[in-house]
């Protein structure tokens, strides 16, 4: 800014503009405007690289991206909460239209009906998929949804203990702990085979299917929780819900999920969208944004952000959550995906995941040295006991050009959690089986 010509394609002020504006402001230079910064700290020098024009930037970033061994080039059998699903080509160009992409949270509803109605669709579709009464506009991700569900359960029940089944995604458990701890909420684990609730427990948290791909006795969990005045909280895989009974069926009070499964790219961890659904009666305890239907001055239907008194910008330290910027665009992505997949498509996806994962499991179970330590019904993911440490097996798969499963040897001897979705072809599965056989030799 030291009088040098402006050369950024992102800043329109020309030298003439600046001069005219400084004159209007009554300042001699742009530097003068920073006079409130104590001189000792002003212009500290910025040790960043020189600007890289777009051409060079793209080359640089492509080189970085190419250094990943990724699912665009290699079959992947890794899930563990983040799934590769097919997403129709139409989703990205629609969702990334500038009008969606570059708008803010819809504080001026009259000129934000696109975002608001899109959010309302997300709420409708997720509530329906989860078989729950209401949904909010989306949370950061599946893990924070679940953690906020625990906080909400404590608010609703006015209790300060949370039971979490030990088959819940360990990363989710870690987030629950981080969120619960400052509130003095005691989080404890319990065994799904014989779940125990301590007194004054606010909720029993389970995962559906659980972290190892298996279904558990969800009805029993719900009943147990309700018997003790606790809430039943379930974290569900949205794809599984197209085929299996939804949490609402079991009487879940709060059901959350990772919306990434709804066609959102894995993107090394985010952005995703947390699904958060609950019973109507608890709606004023919901965290996060909610869109609601109303009318305008002429009686035309329109949508607004509603129940805002729950939120930080109104209620401040007494808000139900501090969440502000959330994941509206990813929620829109999920809504468009659900619209396209629709009633039959999403079920078909779930059936394909079922079919292919069971084919893979049955073939792997036949391999010498491999076995399936779990016997319950599983969906899309299953644990394999390997003849060698899973890290070694994974390295062998990598050499064979395959992205293998998650190492769960902390829970199962030489256990590897494999995932097969509709995107894995039979040929890929057969290649995996061959590579596993080879690795066992």
């Amino acid at each position, binding site marked *: 800014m030291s009088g040098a010509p402006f050369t950024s394609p992102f800043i*329109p002020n020309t030298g003439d503009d600046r001069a005219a*504006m400084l004159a209007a402001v009554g300042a001699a230079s742009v530097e003068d405007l920073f006079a409130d910064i104590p001189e000792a700290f002003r212009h500290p020098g910025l040790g960043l690289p020189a600007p890289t024009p777009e051409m060079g*930037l793209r080359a640089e*970033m492509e080189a970085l991206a190419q250094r990943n061994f990724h699912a665009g080039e290699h079959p992947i059998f890794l899930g563990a*909460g983040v799934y590769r699903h097919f997403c129709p080509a139409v989703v990205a160009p629609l969702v990334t239209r500038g009008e969606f992409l570059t708008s803010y949270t819809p504080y001026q509803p009259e000129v934000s009906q696109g975002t608001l109605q899109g959010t309302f669709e997300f709420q409708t579709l997720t509530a329906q998929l989860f078989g729950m009464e209401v949904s909010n506009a989306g949370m950061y991700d599946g893990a924070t949804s679940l953690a906020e569900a625990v906080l909400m359960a404590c608010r609703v029940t006015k209790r300060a203990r949370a039971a979490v089944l030990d088959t819940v995604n360990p990363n989710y458990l870690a987030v629950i702990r981080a969120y619960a701890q400052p509130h003095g909420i005691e989080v404890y684990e319990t065994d799904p085979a014989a779940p125990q609730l301590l007194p004054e427990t606010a909720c029993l948290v389970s995962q559906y299917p659980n972290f190892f791909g298996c279904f558990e006795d969800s009805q029993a969990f719900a009943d147990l929780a309700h018997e003790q005045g606790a809430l039943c909280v379930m974290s569900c895989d949205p794809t599984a819900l197209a085929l299996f009974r939804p949490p609402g069926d079991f009487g879940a009070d709060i059901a959350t999920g990772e919306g990434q499964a709804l066609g959102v790219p894995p993107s090394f961890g985010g952005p995703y969208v947390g699904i958060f659904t609950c019973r109507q009666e608890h709606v004023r305890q919901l965290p996060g944004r909610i869109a609601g239907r109303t009318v305008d001055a002429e009686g035309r239907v*329109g949508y607004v952000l509603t129940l805002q008194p729950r939120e930080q910008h*109104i209620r401040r330290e007494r808000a139900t959550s501090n969440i502000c910027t959330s994941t509206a665009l990813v929620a829109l992505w999920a809504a468009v995906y659900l619209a396209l997949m629709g009633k039959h498509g999403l079920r078909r996806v779930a059936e394909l995941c079922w*079919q292919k994962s069971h084919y893979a499991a049955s073939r792997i179970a036949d391999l010498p040295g491999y076995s399936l330590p779990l016997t319950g019904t599983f969906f899309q993911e299953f644990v394999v006991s390997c003849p060698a440490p899973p890290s070694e097996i994974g390295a062998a798969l990598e050499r064979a050009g395959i992205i293998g499963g998650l190492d769960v040897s902390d829970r199962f001897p030489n256990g590897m959690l494999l995932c097969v979705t509709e995107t894995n072809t039979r040929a890929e599965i057969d290649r995996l089986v061959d590579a596993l056989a080879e690795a066992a030799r």
Partner: protein
Amino acid sequence: MTPDGAPPLREAAHNRRRLLMERSRPGREGVTLPASDAPPQPMPDAAMLRDGLELPEVTEGEVVRYFTHLSQLNFSVDTNFYPLGSCTMKYNPKVNEAVAALPGFALAHPAQPERQVQGALEALFRLQTFLQEVSGLPAVSLAPLAGAQGELAGVLTLRAALEARGEGRRRKMLIPDTAHGTNPASAAMAGFQVVHVPSDSGGDIDLGAVRAEADGDIAGVMFTQPTTLGLFDRNALEMCRVVHEAGGLVYADGANMNALLGRAKLGQMGFDVVHMNLHKTFSTPHGGGGPGAGPICVSAELAPFLPGPVAVRRDDGSYGSETPARSIGRVGGAQGNFGVLIRALSYITLLGADGMLDVSGNAVLNANYLLAKLRPLYDLPFDRPVMHEVVFSARKRPGATALDVSKRLLDHGFHAPTMYFPLVVPEALMIEPTETESKETLDAFVEALHRIDAEAAADESFLHGAPYDAPVSRLDEARAARRPELRWREPEA
């Protein structure tokens, strides 16, 4: 227009906004899926299966029309000036979108072994280094998924550090009355007790009030620099000193970093933790309300408590991902909002050090230009040079509340400023032009505000009816809250 003067073609407009479930017809499909190519497997026990799945049945074309139409109902930076204060609605380079969509990034899985994701980890490591440089603080966690989560993670880290000092009993978190709502909310979520601190007559924090609270129970202060009044707080240095002396730590909400890029490093000025909103300063478009990312930068003392994972560079030159020794734990299920982080890396690489100075210089120049041009029209609670934004009070003219002016601006094709915030300014209009707007646009905006003022002068009730030319007129928010309709439901027969 219609011959009988009736409102124009209302059904047509209504039809275009019918919800998906209202459009659904049994037998329509939005996509076809293949049959399984694997040998058939027995299906699960029927008792486990769900009964029916109420999702829409619509064609691809209908989905495209519907969402295209919805998009056109939105105001956006890509369509016009969006001076929404505190939100930094600037134009974000489109190349960032292309970079984030590269298959090598978009298809990398967060649970892959480090060896397989060296490119992604190196990207994260580079970004950490850049943010350290911008903040002047030595350690960074990219894990927080938005600004508010950065605040939560930041104050939890601060709390952990106090506990490590054996000062875990400290519970009082000072928060200026100008603070963004997320600050007190985050402090509360982190188990602190919020103590509000007023501003002084110059718009800076009231040092007397800070001193009065700086006792043995003070955990710290959450402070926004520059403040939500658009001011660089001149008392902040002293405030840091006082709080530190009392044994507290100082949190900086760095959401307004756009003003400071290359101009000052908060870490050098005594702040122990800074969160930044990458989606504001570092160019992820806001997407109608996210996603974002809210990395936190901390002092060496706080570094061991950062939330994981943190990217590291190993001695052999490879990159890894680690959770700090005494971490407050995890704040998300995976690796952070990588897609947002990569946009920030792309942006910083594109603009470089020189570009960062251009950003802050022009953002501040533009704000001060609007201050100068609009001072005749509105009350200015604190008459001094501003940083990235300027807050006026709309109190001057009857029939022209902040709400009225805001709604009428929509008719002029401009987005409204942030209204009624910060809370300390009555009828606040908080205007943040950003560096990506031109003088012509700012001049047109000033002119629109002059016209609106003249409209109110001509007819006191006119602005109450605005907007007149938006897709809908003022919406009944009370009704929405009274009888919440939060989803489509089958109409009763």
